[in-house]
Structure formats: C-alpha cells, structure tokens
C-alpha cells in the first residue's frame, strides 16, 4: 500500500498508511500537551488524536501558543 500525501502546516508531507494524528505528532517530535490540531478546517480534539487515521489529501494545522499581544 502506498504512502499517503497530506499537507501539514501548508507543506506537503508523506505518512505511512494507517498512521494516526498521534503517530504523525510523534514522528515530528512534538509533545502533544502543547499543540492543537485542526484537520480539514475543524478542530480535532486531543482525545481523538490516537483514533483518527490520516487520509490522503488531509490538511492539518498543528499549532501552539506563541508570544503575542
């Protein structure tokens, strides 16, 4: 089965078939505690990160708080 093409934070990325959002974050070395994820325009609650399998063409936003006013 071929790898999946998705978009993460605006850039293309390839993930293994069956990979979940949690897998992706682990891959990226991102501690889950401090990020939020939007999938195809809707927030993906943290509780679902481990259940949600990625699909080809998914558009993810992975965000965190930064300094701002």
């Amino acid at each position: 089965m071929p790898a999946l093409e998705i978009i993460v934070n605006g850039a293309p990325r390839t993930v293994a078939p069956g990979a979940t959002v949690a897998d992706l974050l682990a891959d990226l070395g991102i501690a889950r505690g401090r990020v939020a994820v939007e999938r195809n325009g809707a927030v993906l609650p943290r509780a679902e990160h481990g259940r949600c399998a990625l699909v080809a063409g998914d558009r993810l936003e992975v965000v965190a708080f930064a300094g701002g006013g």
Partner: protein
Amino acid sequence: MSNDVWSVGGHTFGSRLLVGTGKYASIDQTRAAIAASGAEIVTVALRRVKLDRTKPSVLDAIPSGCTLLPNTAGCTTVDDAVRTARLSRELGMSELVKLEVIGDERTLYPDNAATVRAAEILVGDGFTVLPYCTADVVTVKRLCEVGCAAVMPLAAPIGSGLGILNPHIIKLILEMVDVPVIVDAGVGTASDAAVAMELGCDAVLMNTGIAAAKEPVLMAEAMREAVSAGRKAFRAGRMPRRAYATASSPETGLIGDGPAKLPNSPVS
C-alpha cells in the same frame, strides 16, 4: 479598596492591566515583565509549530495563577479568526478569546464589520469574546448586541505608542455600554495608561508599551502603578478644573502691620 474588582465572562480580577507576550528579548524577560506588571490576564497568539525544533514555550513565562487570553492576531477573515479561536480553545482549555480581524496592514486597524460577524459566530459557539475594535460607537453597539463580554477599542494604532488619541470618543463609549471597556493598543507610557483609567475604562491591555521600552521590566512596574493610580483617581473623583487660582485658607492671619493683609497659605 481591596474589593475594587472587575469581572469579564464570569471571571473576576483585581488587576486592571492586561499584558501581551510579544516582542520581548527572551522568555526570561517576558516572565519578569509579566510578574512586575501584576497582570492577571495575559494574551498569547497562536501559530503553527515549527516542525523541526523545539523551543521554550511562551507559556513558561506566564505565572500559574494567570488567565490566558488567546488572540486571533493576524487573522484577516472571519473564517481564519473563527478557526484560530477554536484551536486556541482546544489548546487553552478556556472559552476566552481576544478577537482580532485585521482589515488594514499598515495600521493594523480592525475590520469592524468582519469582527462583528466573527463575534456572533464565536458567541454562538460558546466563547467569551473580547473584541478588538475601533473606538466607534456603532460597532461597539453591534458587538454588545451579538453578545460580546467586553469591548476593546483601540486608543491608537497597535504598536504606535501614540497614547489616547481621542479621549472624547472613549468617554462616549463608556456612557453607552454595560460590558467592560478595555482600552487595547496605543498606550506608550505610564501616563497614557492613567488617562485611560481616569476616563473610566475598566482595564487596559498593552504589549509594545512595555516590551519596547528600554527597560521592559521597570516599565511593567510603572504600568502596574499607573493603571492602579488612574483607577483610584477615577474612583476618588478628581477636583474640578478652574480657570483661575484659588487660595486655600482663610485670607487673614498673615504678618504685617495693620489689619492682616495677606491670605493664609494658598495651596499648590
């Protein structure tokens, strides 16, 4: 005096100074400035994580008791602002959001009409919305009508430090709304903050005024005192302005040969 508190969205605060977390030289400076400011509400922005490296989080700079106020800074459409707010809620576990929908790049002026629409959506979505807006009485009315928990008119362009350019319109807004009025943007120095509070505003939000001072931590302390001073002056009820001088004490009792000819001490 100890009970001069204010509330927004069901939260109650003693400090009337809200501070941002942008533009500091370091996380350590951010932390020290926030602590010196005494702020109980601290704004943060939301942005994409850098996928390649880890760096300290702005959250490390924020004292544990503080309430986070995520903003939608940089958003220029209703949709981006709404999505950003929802992500922030997911991150921050809180329904508070400082709503910004920017309509002009050079002045960072808000798009008031889009802000009203985004506010309506977010209020419907359960958010406690604190919208950044111009000091426009009609926009402020609309924001209240759609259920905003406060209004945050700008005093001058973001990051300009020009102070309260139009105090009169701030006063008109204060007379008109029931929710808290928080002056947001434009405060450049301590007296600006005091002026905002003396007008009767409930609170002041600032970032550059502190972070871009030569000594941000000392300025944070100055701002804390200035907000408190302005608030107390508002509550104390300032003396009336008079065109002429007024001596203070009975105008008798000065030394001199005959009938006392000099007034007692006129006061400064």
